[in-house]
């Protein structure tokens, strides 16, 4: 077959379309595999009973609670810090050395491997601050991990708010803080919420950082200082040790479903509210 432009065009198209379909197919394959093997385990008992016998029997209730608590700490800490940083960068300063340093820090934080976050969380929160293996240690470590994401999405959201809103507010005698709290925050809220939702998804999925900071105790966490095992950690331990494949798949299926819901939710937010502002 001659290498004419038409032929290479056809060939290229075939390859490229195959790659796209391949990626979509891969996603479906992985998800379907986990969901098919895992959803049969997802009954009410599984979700509300705690693990027993090191996870060989029982459900995953304590790990669900563990995940919720750790994620909640992470979001409660990271959101104000991240959104506040984004507002500072966009509203209170011009581009200059200060903003560059802050952005550099955020981008660097985004690239640090999760296992290194685990090391940091261990040596700083667990040991140095004496918090021990706990929901608090795990949540605070995750907070630092998701901080860059929240800063980035919040900043993007704030930048899409039309400049004129600020001029209108100032011309009516508004101060910077009044303008932020009166107009800009509410206008940027959908985009900010999207970032927070994605941060939640990240927290649910994280394993390496959590296992070194929140521990792996199967007991139901009763306070911020209790050790806790999250679903991701539980899944890892079940799978690695071969303790119970059935329960491993069930845990994975639950995680996948949650993350799917989160992604769909974030997309709905973006399509419904963020596109509008223009």
């Amino acid at each position, binding site marked *: 077959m001659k290498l004419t432009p038409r032929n290479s065009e056809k060939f290229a198209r075939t390859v490229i379309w195959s790659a796209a379909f391949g990626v979509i197919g*891969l996603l479906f394959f992985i998800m379907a*595999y986990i969901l098919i093997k895992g959803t049969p385990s997802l009954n009410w008992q599984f979700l509300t009973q705690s693990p027993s016998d090191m996870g060989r029997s029982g459900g995953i209730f304590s790990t669900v609670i563990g995940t919720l608590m750790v994620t909640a700490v992470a979001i409660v800490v990271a959101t104000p810090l991240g959104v506040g940083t984004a507002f500072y960068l966009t509203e209170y300063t011009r581009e200059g050395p200060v903003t560059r340093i802050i952005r550099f820090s955020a981008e660097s934080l985004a690239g640090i491997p999760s296992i290194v976050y685990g090391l940091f969380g261990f040596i700083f929160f667990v040991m140095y601050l004496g918090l021990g293996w706990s929901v608090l240690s795990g949540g605070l470590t995750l907070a630092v991990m998701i901080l860059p994401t929240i800063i980035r999405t919040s900043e993007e959201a704030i930048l899409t708010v039309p400049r004129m809103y600020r001029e209108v507010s100032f011309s009516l005698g508004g101060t910077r803080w009044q303008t932020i709290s009166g107009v800009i925050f509410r206008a940027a809220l959908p985009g900010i919420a999207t970032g927070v939702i994605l941060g939640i998804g990240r927290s649910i999925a994280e394993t390496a950082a959590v296992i070194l900071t929140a521990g792996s105790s199967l007991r139901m966490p009763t306070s911020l200082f209790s050790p806790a095992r999250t679903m991701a950690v539980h899944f890892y331990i079940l799978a690695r040790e071969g303790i119970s494949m059935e329960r491993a798949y069930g845990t994975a299926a639950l995680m996948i479903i949650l993350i799917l819901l989160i992604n769909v939710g974030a997309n709905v937010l973006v399509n419904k509210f963020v596109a509008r502002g223009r």
Partner: protein
Amino acid sequence: MTKFREKIAQRGFMLVALSALSALALITIFIVAEGVPIIGKVGVLKFVFGMKWAPTQGYFGIFPMIVGSISVTLGAVILGVPIALCCAIFLAEYAPALMRNVLRPAIQMLAGIPSVVYGFWGLVFVVPAIRNYLGGPGLSILAGSIILAIMILPTVISISEVSLLALPPLYKEGALALGATQWQTIRRVLVPAAKSGIVAAIILGVGRAVGETMAVIMVLGNAVAMPSSILDPARTLTTNIGIEMGYASGEHQQALFATGIVLLIIIMILNSVAQFAFRRR
């Protein structure tokens, strides 16, 4: 009264904005503080290039892990980048709106799947496949590369796509007006023009691969010896920490922190190069 509140708001925001910098500083300080003593004791060269890792016997050479990391990452790039570029080109140039609305969320979802799930899936599918068709224990560098290739797809695709979309439409229109086919335009004009962005995407993908732990820990086999082929099991810098941190103490633990320092340095270098490449576009 409002002036006072205004001052407080400004100071408050400024304090909050320093959180990212403080976090970075804390991480660097504590990791370095914990890891430097052992590097000082063993010596930088012996640590980085030492061939034997047996902490209980006093051997702290991480070179086999470095080789493991490099091999796995290289494999991931070779397997993953071409597919990622095809998808990026697809999204930027060929995809009808319907396909875009399917592929983009799919990539987002791929990015959201927990790495442990990828690792497990690799353990259940990829490892036996390698063992049956290619030999060896199955737990191997190849398995790790395949899993990591899938995991870096979202990163490389999204940044490459952005770079392609950012090109002035003039480039494409000019080429097409001269009679080039779509593929010719892409190959000869658009991709070269988006080169720095694509390079940045690949570098960030490399960074992601180097930093990944849980996905590879289950498929890599965790042999401490220096691997000699892609079918051999191995350890990476990250899986080394992941496996041993659970029971390490004293100097052993310090050595794992020292490995963390090495990872930090690698990531910093990769990030800086990627930033540089990204800014040039």
